[in-house]
């Protein structure tokens, strides 16, 4: 079974600075998808960024980018020019690309605090 590990329970960043959230995963599959979701206090899960494992190029979405290291099974999220609205719980998630590719497997999350 696949597992996702987020080793940082909590992180802090100064407004306008850059922060990196770590995620590692364990799988025997070669094709899969990785995601970062943001969950503010409203509980609404919001997709931040996704990465297809077959793509070597790291995904980027405006201020958000990932460092995908397939061999190391690492998938970190970099947030540049941090804003107060970035404060939330961030979850890393894995999804199989095969026939069983329905459920998302989540890490335990990292609380991100943004200081003004």
């Amino acid at each position, binding site marked *: 079974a696949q597992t*996702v590990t*987020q080793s940082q329970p909590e992180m802090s960043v100064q407004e306008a600075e850059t922060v990196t959230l770590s995620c590692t995963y364990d799988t025997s599959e070669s094709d899969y*998808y990785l995601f970062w*979701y943001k969950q503010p206090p*409203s*509980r*609404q*899960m*919001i*997709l931040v960024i*996704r990465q297809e494992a077959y793509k070597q190029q790291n995904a980027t979405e405006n201020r958000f980018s990932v460092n995908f290291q397939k061999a190391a099974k690492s998938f970190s999220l970099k947030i540049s020019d941090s804003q107060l609205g970035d404060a939330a719980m961030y*979850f890393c*998630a894995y*999804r*199989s*690309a*095969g026939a069983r*590719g*329905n*459920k*998302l*497997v*989540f*890490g*335990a*999350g990292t609380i991100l605090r943004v200081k003004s």
Partner: protein
Amino acid sequence: GAGVSQSPSNKVTEKGKDVELRCDPISGHTALYWYRQRLGQGLEFLIYFQGNSAPDKSGLPSDRFSAERTGESVSTLTIQRTQQEDSAVYLCASSFGLVTDTQYFGPGTRLTVL
């Protein structure tokens, strides 16, 4: 509506009572998922519906948990004889059904079992 909706937003019940949680997916989404999020933890998969196929129930923690879905519309998650360890936020998500599709989440139902 534009997004996934869930009701009720909050539910408080007494141990031993049954509860029903409702999810309205995005119109046109054939796939529907239920997840459970215990306090301070990540989401755990419960069950998955895809069109008229048999649901994937592999994540249901016990036979007290069941879920139904009528066609490609509303789904109901039922927890019978609730226990205190059932206290959690129950999140629903929907997608178009392809493995490449993004899952869109509802705001969840916070269940508290006293």
